[in-house]
């Protein structure tokens, strides 16, 4: 399910930003035109896709954001929007009035929240985010990107309760961006991060919040007990995957996912369907995995990886490593 970038502008500067490399290299003012938006909608519909994930930058900064959402809904898509929650009052008002009657399943937000204590956040940004959460409430699934090992989740539980957000928490690891120096979780810290995540288990249970793991978690770093708990309390079955998500830029450039935004970029116009596009990037993923199975040496012979139950962690770690080595590997693995 490709994410569609409506704009490359953003109002935040998160230290772990997955998109930072792409946004500094691309035209910052580029916005998706109506013509290309319709092309993407046709492309997705032709591929049998019913979901339309909108991304940025901050997608609500697109001057036609409300119209684009309305149009996608009118085309029968289910729309979800990845946002920082920093949304202008005017846009927020328009969203609230236009989509008031849309069921959650048809239209919702995934709001990426930063801990104001640990990530520099201005007072006005925080006010904006709170205004957004207060207004959109149950239409919001909170999300959190873990980019430091001493993270806390308390503020998220507080926000869920205070603003009546969905009781599902999307947790992501900040992955390295090959060719950029953003904050991320190093391989040797992953176990610690998982431990810390599970230290909030009582809160998850007490507040009845279901954790959902984003891509790139290696299954072997979870204990049997943790996996069992995730099975019982998690939001859906955790897949420990890493596969091409597909991001489509405002100029219809495509790349496999944000950490690999400089990796084998193509134009959407070169493909007839999502299936073709996925096959192309899966083949490149496979080439990378042939060179290095995953984050750990044991990934090479891991049955869970061969069986597809775990991808061996985020591929960006491997791609990043290749760039600093002598170029002796298969040519496809280089940026």
């Amino acid at each position, binding site marked *: 399910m490709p994410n569609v970038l409506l704009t490359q502008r953003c109002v935040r500067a998160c230290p772990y930003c997955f998109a930072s490399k792409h946004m500094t290299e691309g035209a910052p003012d580029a916005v998706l*035109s109506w013509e290309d938006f319709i092309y993407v909608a046709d492309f997705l519909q032709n591929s049998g896709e019913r979901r339309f994930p909108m991304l940025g930058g901050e997608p609500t900064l697109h001057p036609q954001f409300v119209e684009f959402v*309305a149009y996608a809904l009118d085309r029968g898509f289910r729309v979800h929007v990845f946002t920082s929650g920093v949304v202008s009052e005017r846009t927020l008002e328009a969203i609230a009035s236009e989509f008031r009657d849309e069921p959650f399943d048809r239209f919702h937000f995934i709001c990426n929240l930063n801990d104001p204590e640990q990530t520099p956040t201005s007072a006005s940004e925080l006010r904006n985010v709170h205004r957004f959460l207060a207004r959109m409430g149950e239409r919001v699934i909170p999300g959190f990107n873990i980019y430091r090992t001493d993270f806390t989740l308390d503020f998220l539980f507080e926000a869920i309760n205070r603003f009546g957000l969905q009781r599902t928490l999307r947790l992501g690891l900040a992955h390295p961006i090959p060719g950029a120096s953003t904050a991320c979780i190093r391989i040797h810290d992953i176990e610690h991060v998982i431990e810390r995540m599970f230290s909030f288990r009582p809160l998850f249970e007490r507040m009845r919040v279901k954790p959902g793991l984003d891509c790139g978690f290696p299954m072997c770093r979870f204990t049997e007990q943790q996996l069992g708990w995730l099975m019982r309390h998690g939001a859906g079955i955790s897949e420990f995957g890493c596969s091409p998500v597909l991001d489509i830029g405002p100029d219809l450039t495509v790349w496999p996912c944000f950490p690999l935004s400089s990796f084998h970029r193509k134009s959407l116009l070169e493909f007839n369907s999502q299936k073709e596009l996925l096959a192309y990037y899966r083949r490149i993923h496979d080439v990378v995995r042939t060179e290095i199975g995953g984050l750990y040496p044991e990934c090479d012979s891991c049955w869970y990886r061969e069986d597809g139950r775990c991808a061996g962690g985020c591929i960006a770690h491997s791609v990043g490593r290749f760039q600093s080595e002598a170029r002796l590997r298969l040519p496809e693995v280089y940026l």
Partner: protein
Amino acid sequence: MTSHALVVPHDQDLLRRLKGQTVVVRTDDPASVATILTDTDRHDLRLRGIWLKAGGALANVEVDESWRRCRVALEVDVMGSYRVLRRRLGLLSGLRTRVYLSTREPENVTNVRVLASLGVACAVVIEQPVDWDALADLATYALLGLRSRGSIEPMHYLARNYVARHRTDFGAIYFDDPKNLLHVDDQGRVALSHRELLRGDVVLQSVDELSGLECVEAYQERIYGWQRHFLDADACACCPGWRICLGRYLGSGSSGCASFFEELLDLVEQYQARRGQGRLG
């Protein structure tokens, strides 16, 4: 009785005089559609459609269920607010209504694509100024796009009717087809096009004289007017796109029409080839 359909104003006296005739009724009042249907029934007229020059924004036109009963060519200035329009989209796309938007407003070319992608039949009125490149993009979308959708004229008309190496006149889309359509004012005077009617440039003083139309020199000149490009050896005479534009844009201060129509012709041929192979969405 004439084989021509008559484009007439919504005028009771005139409609009464035209009993049995095939007509297109011209109006600028969206609320009059239901009345026109009643009046044409009452006067025993064959209603081919209603030409509704509503002007303004499509989003502000009150469309209603009565429109289902006939074809409506709805001419508006702009699409208007999508957020307002979307509340009527379901109804609009289910009607036999074609929305006409002019290239005079640059955003209209984009808005035709928006509407057509939602299943609303559209027509682009090609008037100066024209962004021929944007129009060529629209033609590509219309004929070779990924999904089937509401038709976009004149592209789809040509795709349906063009026969290789023959000339094809898409004027009927715009009620500009004197071979089949004549324009009548409320006095019953007849002109070959709406533009000429507005100028008072009539060829017959009364609809009662229609049987003599074939003998009118101006009519003959118009029917065979396409030959003039070759007699004058003007720019259209050697333009490959002439077969589908018939020199319609010569002398209108237009530049870029030749490459557009040449490209459109190529798209039409590709469309027909794909249709022949059953490869259209």
